[in-house]
C-alpha cells in the first residue's frame, strides 16, 4: 500500500508541472463551454452535441495519453528501474498511476455534465459511462506505454490510435461504413449514448421538423444503453487481455 500511495502522491505532485497533460484536463471542458455557448444561443441541441463530442474526445484521448506517456517516460529515463529495485511491484506501480488518472478524470467529466446541463438519472448514466470509458482508455494507454521504449515512440504509437478513437464516432454522421466501425469501439458507443442522453432518440431515428418535413437522424441506429455498456466493457476486457499479453512479453523492469 505504501508503494501505491507513494506513486499516487508522485503523480499528484507531477501533474501541475506536466503542462502538456494538465492542459488537456482543462482545455477540453473550456473549449466545449466556449463553443457550446456560441452555438447553443441559436441551436441548444447543437450546443449540447458539441459538449458531448468533447466529452467523448476527452475520454478517448486524455487518460490514454496520460498513462502511455507516464510509463514511457519512466522507461526512457530509467526511473522505473529504481522503483522496481526499491521493491515496487509492477501491479502497485500500475495501480498508483491508473488510480490517479481515473480520479483526475472525474473533474472534467463533472464539468462536461454541468456544461451539457445533465442532471438526475441522466447524470448517473453519463458518469458511469464516462468512467467506464476512462478505464478502457487508461488500460489501452498502459498497453501502449508497455510497448514503448521512449516518449517519442509512444507518441508515434498512440497518435493513429487516438485519431481513430476520437474521429470515427464523429465521422459516423457522414459515412455508414465508418459508422459500423464506430459501433464496436468504446468511444463510438460513448458518443452515441451521450447524444441519446442530451438529445434523445430522435438524433438516431429522425423527426419531423417545424414545417412537417421528415428529417433523417444525424447518427446511425443506436442500440441502447445496455448494448453501449456491453461494448465499452468488452473493449475494456480486450484491452486488459492485451495488457496481460504485453506485460508477459515486455514486463515492467525499467
Amino acid at each position, binding site marked *: 500500500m505504501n508503494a501505491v500511495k507513494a506513486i499516487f502522491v508522485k503523480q499528484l505532485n507531477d501533474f501541475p508541472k506536466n503542462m502538456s497533460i494538465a492542459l488537456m484536463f482543462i482545455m477540453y471542458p473550456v473549449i466545449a463551454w466556449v463553443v457550446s455557448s456560441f452555438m447553443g444561443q441559436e441551436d441548444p441541441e447543437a450546443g449540447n452535441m458539441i459538449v458531448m463530442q468533447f466529452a467523448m474526445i476527452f475520454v478517448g484521448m486524455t487518460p490514454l495519453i496520460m498513462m502511455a506517456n507516464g510509463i514511457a517516460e519512466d522507461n526512457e529515463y530509467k*526511473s522505473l*528501474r*529504481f522503483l522496481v529495485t526499491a*521493491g515496487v511491484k509492477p501491479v502497485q506501480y500500475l495501480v498508483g498511476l491508473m488510480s490517479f488518472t481515473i480520479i483526475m478524470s472525474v473533474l472534467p467529466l463533472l464539468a462536461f455534465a454541468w456544461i451539457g446541463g445533465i442532471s438526475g438519472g441522466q447524470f448517473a448514466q453519463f458518469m458511469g459511462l464516462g468512467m467506464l470509458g476512462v478505464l478502457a482508455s487508461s488500460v489501452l494507454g498502459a498497453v501502449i506505454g508497455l510497448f514503448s521504449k521512449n516518449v517519442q515512440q509512444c507518441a508515434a504509437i498512440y497518435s493513429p490510435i487516438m485519431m481513430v478513437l476520437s474521429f470515427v464516432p464523429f465521422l459516423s454522421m457522414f459515412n455508414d461504413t465508418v459508422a459500423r466501425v464506430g459501433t464496436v469501439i468504446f468511444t463510438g458507443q460513448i458518443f452515441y449514448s451521450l447524444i441519446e442522453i442530451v438529445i434523445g432518440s430522435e438524433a438516431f431515428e429522425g423527426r419531423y421538423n417545424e414545417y412537417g418535413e421528415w428529417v433523417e437522424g444525424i447518427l446511425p441506429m443506436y442500440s441502447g444503453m445496455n448494448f453501449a455498456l456491453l461494448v465499452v466493457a468488452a473493449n475494456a476486457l480486450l484491452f486488459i487481455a492485451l495488457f496481460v499479453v504485453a506485460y508477459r512479453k515486455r514486463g515492467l523492469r525499467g
Partner: protein
Amino acid sequence: MIYMKGVVKRFGEKVVLNDVSFEAKDGEIFGLLGPSGAGKTTIINILAGQLQADGGSHDIGTNLMHTGLMLEQDGLYARLSCTENLNLFARIYGVPLSKVSQSLEAVGLTEAAKKPVNKLSKGMRQRLALARAILHEPKVLFLDEPTANLDPNTAIGIHKLIRDLRDRGSTVFLTTHNMDEAVNLCNNVALLHRGAIVEYGQPAEICERHDSFKTVPDLEAVFLKLTGDVMTEVKL
C-alpha cells in the same frame, strides 16, 4: 557478502562478462575498476537484479529492498523537486519524511531542496541520486562512477560520506576508472578488462605484487602492465 562466481553474460554473440568471480566482504568498500566498456555497469546491473546472467552464480547477501542504487542514468523525476523525488522513495521504503532533509544535507543539497531536478547541474543531480541511494541506510550500496563529473571538493565530500556509510556497516560496491579514488577509498578492488577480472585484492597489495608501489600505489601502471590498455579515459 557480495559474490560472483563464474558469471557469464552475453549480449547477442558478444561475450561481455567471461567467467567473472570475486567477493566483497560485509562492511567494506569494494571497487570495480576498468575502462569504459569493460563490463562494470553490466556487473552492477546483474547484482542489482536488472539483468540476468547467462551462467555462473551471484548473490548480494540481502534483499534488493535493502540496497541503494546510483547509476549513470539517474532515473530522477525531472519536473519534481529534490525533496519530492526523495519523498517518493521515503514513502516506498516506509522511512520517516524527516530522513529526506538529512539525506539532502549529507550531500550538500539543502539549499536546492525545492529546486526542480531539471534546473540542477549534472553534479547536483549526481549528489541527489546519491542522497536517494542512502535514504534508507541500505546494507549494500551500488555506486556506478559516483564522483564522475564532480568538482574535487564535492568528490572529497562524497568520499567522506562513503567512508561514513562503510563505518556504519554498509557494504559499498563502486565502479570507477579513477585510480586515485580506488586507492584512497577501497578496501579491495578487482581490475576488469574486456569482461574478465585480471587482478583482485587490496590496492596496495596488488601494486606491490606488480612492483608498482614506488612512493604511492600505482594501480594505473598495474593495469597497463596486465592489459596493455590505459585505464583512465583521455578526453581531448
